[in-house]
């Protein structure tokens, strides 16, 4: 787990370099969601470049598609594509590394970017898995601002109705969106209860703790009657230190040179700290 935590800071550095090179990206959400993606791809999901044609593989949809830099960085670390090429070509003219996930790239099942699509698509995947008696599980990662989309609740409704225990949705609950705090923009008071009332199993954890996330994802597998939602309470900009953390302005801000050096130093420090904890 310590190595994975260290890796999460290394991959945030990749994200930072992608954004510096391209001059755009959603860095705040990338940093908050990174631990969720690292836990899923390196501890939980049966997804690799070798098994993408295997119908028994797990399925993943990145519903908060704007955190594409974190997603691409993790896929590169899994061996789906080259990290240096990713940093060099991200969002450049004619690049395959578009600024939202697209399934012309290896490892990506569905195109996303418009919010509120991932969960309903995963309901379809989970239904297909059940029809065919497959063992693979279905995962999606959503943002908390995204929860204002009505289609998300259509997805919650159908998954609860069909008792899709092979489905797990993780919410990156960083409590910030582009205009400010999620609770001011559109509140999600009693979020766990709301989702539970749709016949879901709900687990709340520290979403920037890989051990806690991993334990929750393990517990989700034991639930046989309902789908599971993990509310991953995160800090937007996590890893970026005082400069970035918990600041709505960093939703898609590109760091200046000086800020880049400060954030880079902070990521290096946290990585070392994780390794020697």
């Amino acid at each position, binding site marked *: 787990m310590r190595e994975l935590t260290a890796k999460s800071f290394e991959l945030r550095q990749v994200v930072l370099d992608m954004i510096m090179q391209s001059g755009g990206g959603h860095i705040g959400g990338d940093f908050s969601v990174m631990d969720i993606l690292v836990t899923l791809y390196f501890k939980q999901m049966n997804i690799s470049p070798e098994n993408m044609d295997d*119908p028994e593989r797990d*399925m993943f949809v990145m519903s908060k598609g704007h955190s594409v830099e974190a997603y691409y960085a993790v896929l590169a670390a899994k061996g789906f594509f080259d990290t240096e090429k990713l940093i060099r070509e991200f969002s450049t003219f004619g690049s395959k590394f578009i600024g939202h996930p*697209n*399934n012309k790239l290896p490892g990506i*099942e*569905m*195109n*996303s*970017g*418009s919010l*509120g*699509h991932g969960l*309903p*698509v*995963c*309901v*379809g*995947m*989970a*239904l*297909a*898995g059940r*029809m*065919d008696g497959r063992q693979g599980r279905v995962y999606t990662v959503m943002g908390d601002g995204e929860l204002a989309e*009505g*289609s998300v609740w*259509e*997805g919650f*409704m*159908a998954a609860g*109705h069909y008792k899709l225990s092979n489905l797990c949705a993780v919410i990156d609950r960083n409590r910030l969106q582009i205009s400010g705090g999620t609770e001011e923009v559109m509140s999600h008071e009693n979020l766990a209860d709301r989702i539970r009332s749709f016949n879901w199993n709900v687990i709340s954890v520290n979403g920037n703790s890989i051990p806690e996330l991993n334990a929750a994802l393990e517990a989700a597998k034991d639930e046989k009657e309902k789908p599971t939602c993990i509310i991953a309470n995160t800090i937007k900009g996590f890893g970026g230190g005082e400069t970035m953390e918990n600041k709505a302005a960093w939703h898609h801000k590109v760091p200046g040179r000086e800020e880049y050096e400060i954030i880079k130093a902070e990521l290096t420090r946290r990585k070392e700290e994780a390794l020697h904890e």
Partner: protein
Amino acid sequence: MNKIPNRKAICDVLLEKAKTDRDIVVLCSDSRGSASMAPFFEQYPEQSVEVGIAEQNLVSISAGLAKCGKKPFCFSPASFLSTRSYEQAKVDVAYSNTNVKLVGISGGISYGELGMSHHSAQDIAAMSAIPNMRVYLPSDRFQTACMMKALLQDEKPAYIRVGRNPVEDIYQEDCPFEMDRAVVIRDGNAGEAVSGGKMDWEQMGEVDVTIVACGEMVRPAVRGAELLKEKGIRTLVLDMYCVKPLDTESLVKAAERSKLVVTAEEHSPFGGLGAVVSQVVAAQCPKKVINLALPDAPVITGKSQAVFDYYGLNGEGIAKTVVESLG
């Protein structure tokens, strides 16, 4: 008069094919009755999914099923399917390239007296504008069945619009059909209906007018051709069920031989069959084109046939337009 609506023909094909294909999945949004899919839900409950009145969910769930190897056919009234779930059709189906067949039932003004909320007079325009989305409006039950069998053979997205009411037969059991080729129903002389791909265009002489129609407007186009024949006006009728990809080859061959092209469709005057036919004819063989369509306004209240008659979307109206234009 035929009593079997095109939606029933769709159900019959799926019932038959599902006997051997366990991957066919039918999804409805509380619409299995109006889709004529209740028999499928009864016979194949394991291959049926009810999503409730939630069209966005309907399309996204279909996309997820398709991504996992299923062959989903999702049914909802065309008015809701084409606009309420438009973004799901664009992103989860077309952009993600999932094998989802979107079936818009009760299309056009099938629900004539129910008002504009229940009319789909913009679905051709909306769906055609999405890259990687095909748009089909079959004319009668035989063509609908042929097209369904063809669609089961491919793995690409498509939007299919059918009406609620039975339409008079145009073809017979062995109807001429090739995927994405228009059907020449009247060739201006006395020939039988043939698919555009098999049409011997070289042997065909000049005609006065080509009428291009799709869906429920094909029958009035044929009726119009009969009325024109009585007046000695040679009329070619193209059943352009494939609005996208349009059979431009047959269209251009027909237009080249005509003095006038008339289009007829159950759609808004913008972005439908008339618009795309005009575009192609203007670019490839400039001829006068007249578009007959519904008005750019909420249509008058009434059963669909009465509404068609009111706007001249019938054999008489089409013939009158041709006569007036040809002088």
